[in-house]
């Protein structure tokens, strides 16, 4: 199966990247941008065919490696 994982900063955690991008967009003459937050998007190909098992595996990898739970949240979808 394939897992599509989004990792985003928790609310209230400073996002220097997003802030800088916001500024740069202004410089490009793109107006009306109120807020930018940058996160990660990770695609993982799993050999596992069983959805429940796959879900458990992805949970584990998010918790233990992909997301820094001190400042980040994660969410994911599974697709065949």
């Amino acid at each position, binding site marked *: 199966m394939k897992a599509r994982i989004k990792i985003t900063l928790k609310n209230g955690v400073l996002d220097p*990247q997003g802030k*800088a*991008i916001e*500024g*740069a967009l202004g*410089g490009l003459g793109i107006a009306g941008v109120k807020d930018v937050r*940058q996160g990660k998007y990770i695609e993982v190909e799993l050999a596992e065919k069983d959805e429940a098992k796959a879900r458990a595996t992805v949970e584990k990898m998010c918790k233990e490696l992909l997301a820094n739970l001190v400042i980040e949240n994660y969410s994911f979808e599974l697709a065949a």
Partner: protein
Amino acid sequence: MRAAVIVFPGTNRERDIAEAISDVSGRPSIMVWHGDTEVPKSDLIVLPGGFSYGDYLRTGAMAAHSPIMRDVIAKAKAGVPVLGVCNGFQTLCEAGLLPGVLLRNASLKFICKDVHLRVDNATTMFTNRYQKGDVAQVVVAHGDGNYFADTETLDKLEAENQVVFRYANSKGEVNAASNLNGSQRNIAGIIDGTGRILGMMPHPENACELALGSTDGRAMFESIASSLMAA
């Protein structure tokens, strides 16, 4: 020779390179603020090293879209020589003035150390004081120096003799062991088709006096100065 050094927010090696140039040219460089819209009249435009815009999003991406770059691109197209070092190289690629892109180092770690470069093209205005095959010891200091381009582009670069520097060992051997950041074909520096726009990751400006460990970078600034005097 009069050089214009572009200063972006987060640039940090502007003084290093400005002084390396004035030491050979005898003329102070003009520092140009990223917010300006025009580069003052100059014989050479320099995009220095550093972390423009914090290296956020992609290294060099935001610098490439800053106001001053529109004029840098215009002047480059009009034939004013441009030198991009480290973050400057990344910016030139993002601005489309040089092919390819610089990805995270294969180790995913920032690397600061002495490396050896093999000079593969000593006919450019930036390198004519070297001999082809010379080995120059210079410092690298980057987290994103992993040069990537598709095979066609790479083949074309090689065919047109546009690969100027490659990572090598002290004997000048170019191999996997001397490829410190995963760059395709050990590429450390390239030049554009017109021969007037050069980008490189290492820092020749920090290799111009023995007190800093090497003088091998000096020939590069002498090449530029003499080429521009002659011109």
